[in-house]
């Protein structure tokens, strides 16, 4: 990870994990079991993500944003947060992998996408997995793009005032960088040297709008200098690189204030289930990107390194399918929220 490093997604993403082979066996803070667990999660998340999309086509899930292509960045950075042990997360709507790996069960996730009672983030008042999951230290109030950035900075301010050692991780897409509030959030965080880590999952599209129509610079990270804190560019398809960058970022944030990590990722699916990306996306480029799909690459690398066996990977896949089936059946059979609850919790103290 080098500051202002050039866009590295042109390079073969697979090579970064070579670090494990060539250098010390595993990056700082990790044991093999951690990687195995990430591998298992990644497979589960993908199975879930695919099923959710299918359920949309069946008319049972009104809307979903897929995280396919973002798994390495999300799970790598989450692993660093979990290892750290004192992080608070402000993810965005594409962060299914983060929200699941943080501890939600597949059943809870499926309840959420189907808008059923027991939905864990908002009681099915909001789009899937939006609201808050406080037991897992996650807040994502809305899907107004970039609205979470100033809130995450405020959270970090609150932590600092309260004397917590917490580092706040704030996730957002390339599209969010155009919003004025992103500027305001970064500037404020810098002035107060707040312990917040900005993580941009740059998939180079805001719905149909390519990066060139969003900014002139090739790296979002280039903006950090204008606020007086460091910005880094990372291969976001490389799980280990994302782990390591986040680990260092958390350390920096706690010691010295904000940093920005830009993870170059791919969005393999249309923007949401409502979108048709054939209107604007080059199929060849997309197909080429799929060669670096973390959900294929990462398990293969672990196998190659001897960290898991192919049989274990197969077992993960099978287990994932079972869990997803179970979750689907469970959520499908679950009741929707009672209409009478519509007034609950409008004000504190009102409602169940």
């Amino acid at each position, binding site marked *: 990870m080098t500051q202002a490093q050039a866009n590295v997604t042109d390079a073969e993403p697979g090579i970064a994990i070579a670090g494990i082979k060539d250098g010390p066996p595993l990056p700082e803070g990790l044991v093999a079991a951690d990687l195995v667990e990430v591998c298992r999660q990644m497979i589960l998340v993908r199975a879930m993500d695919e099923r959710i999309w299918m359920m949309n086509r069946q008319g049972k899930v009104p809307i979903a944003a897929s995280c396919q292509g973002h798994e390495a960045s999300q799970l790598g950075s989450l692993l660093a947060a979990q290892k750290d042990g004192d992080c608070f997360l402000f993810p965005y709507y594409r962060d299914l992998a983060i929200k699941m790996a943080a501890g939600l069960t597949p059943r809870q996730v499926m309840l959420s996408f189907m808008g059923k009672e027991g939905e864990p983030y*908002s009681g099915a008042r909001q789009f899937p997995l939006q609201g808050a999951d406080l037991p897992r230290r996650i807040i994502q109030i809305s899907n*107004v793009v970039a609205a979470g950035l100033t809130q995450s900075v405020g959270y970090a301010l609150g932590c600092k005032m309260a004397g917590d050692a917490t580092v706040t991780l704030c996730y957002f897409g390339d599209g969010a960088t155009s919003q004025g509030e992103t500027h305001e959030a970064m500037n404020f965080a810098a002035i107060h040297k707040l312990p917040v880590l900005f993580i941009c999952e740059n998939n180079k599209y805001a719905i149909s709008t390519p990066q060139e129509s969003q900014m002139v610079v090739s790296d979002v990270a280039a903006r950090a200098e204008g606020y007086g804190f460091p910005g880094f560019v990372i291969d976001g398809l490389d799980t280990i690189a994302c782990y390591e960058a986040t680990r260092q970022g958390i350390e920096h944030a706690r010691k010295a204030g904000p940093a920005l990590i830009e993870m170059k990722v791919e969005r393999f699916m249309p923007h949401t289930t409502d979108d048709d990306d054939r209107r604007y996306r080059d199929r060849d480029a997309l197909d080429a990107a799929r060669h670096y799909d973390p959900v294929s690459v990462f398990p293969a690398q672990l196998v190659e390194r001897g960290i898991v066996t192919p049989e274990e990977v197969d077992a993960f896949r099978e287990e994932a399918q079972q869990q997803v089936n179970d979750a689907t059946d469970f959520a499908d059979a679950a009741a929707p929220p009672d*209409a009478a609850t519509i007034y609950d919790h409008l004000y504190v103290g009102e409602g169940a």
Partner: protein
Amino acid sequence: MAEMTVIEAVRSALREEMERDDRVFVMGEDVGQRGGVFLATQGFIEDFGPQRVMDTPLAEASIMGIALGAAFRGMRPIPEVQFSDFVWPSVNQLIGEAARVHYGTNGALKVPMTVRIPYGGGIRGGLYHSQNVEALFFHTPGLMVVTPSTPYEAKGLLKSAIRDDNPVIFLEHKKTYRLVRGEVPDEEYTLPIGPADIKRAGSDVTVVSYGLAMHYCLAAAATVAEDGISAEVVDLRTLKPLDTATILQSVRKTGKLLVVHEDNVSGGIGAEIAALAANEAFDYLDAPIARLCGPDVPTMPFAQTLEDAYMPSPETIAAEVLRLAAY
């Protein structure tokens, strides 16, 4: 006459006006290659080029401020807000600036800008893709606010809005986009901004509404007719300026007023209409003025049950009309 949907009518109006006047241009998130998330500008970039069908960065305040600045230079911008829920970051440019430009320059500058905003619920949009935002704009002197309910009105009013030299907030109910079909003249036409339309004449109860809910009112009127109750349905079409004459005339005739809208009841458009009637048709009123509106919760929650609980429906409207008629 051709039958089309509301979104087709919007698209047709935009296309005709862009062909008619090359100062007219659309801008917004994903309006270009994508043709807009609701496809209002589908195929436009091919025909008008990326300069007049401009994809913007994801930044609503600047979309509005830039449109406004272009209007100062004599352009006729049509900024699109992708969903009404995302208009908030831009409202300073609309309320604080655009609405006051003509007034605040003592008439020197004008703002020929039409802000297209898909709004409203009933499409499982949850708290952030369902909002009704009309009350704020309605309360802002200097703006015009238009809320078509059918393809005919969407096309005719949008064309007028684009030709108007004042800033117009053009609110398109998302659920009507594909749901509501109707006849639209083949030849060129416009509809004036301002006049309401009596969509169904009646003598027992006046029902005032707009947008999607207006269709539910028509359905309710048909239902109560079976019980011998004659409801007059006034489709406001334009909220600002408000056609007070048509509303008052109807209320003076029926003596009973029900206002129906999807937006939250407190401080909504219905309050103003009730206040109007309670002042200027007071001596004609035979019953308390009633409102059947969205409840005072943020907006339609995501779950189907909760969304249903939020929305006014033909059934709840019919019940209210019957109650009023019997008063």
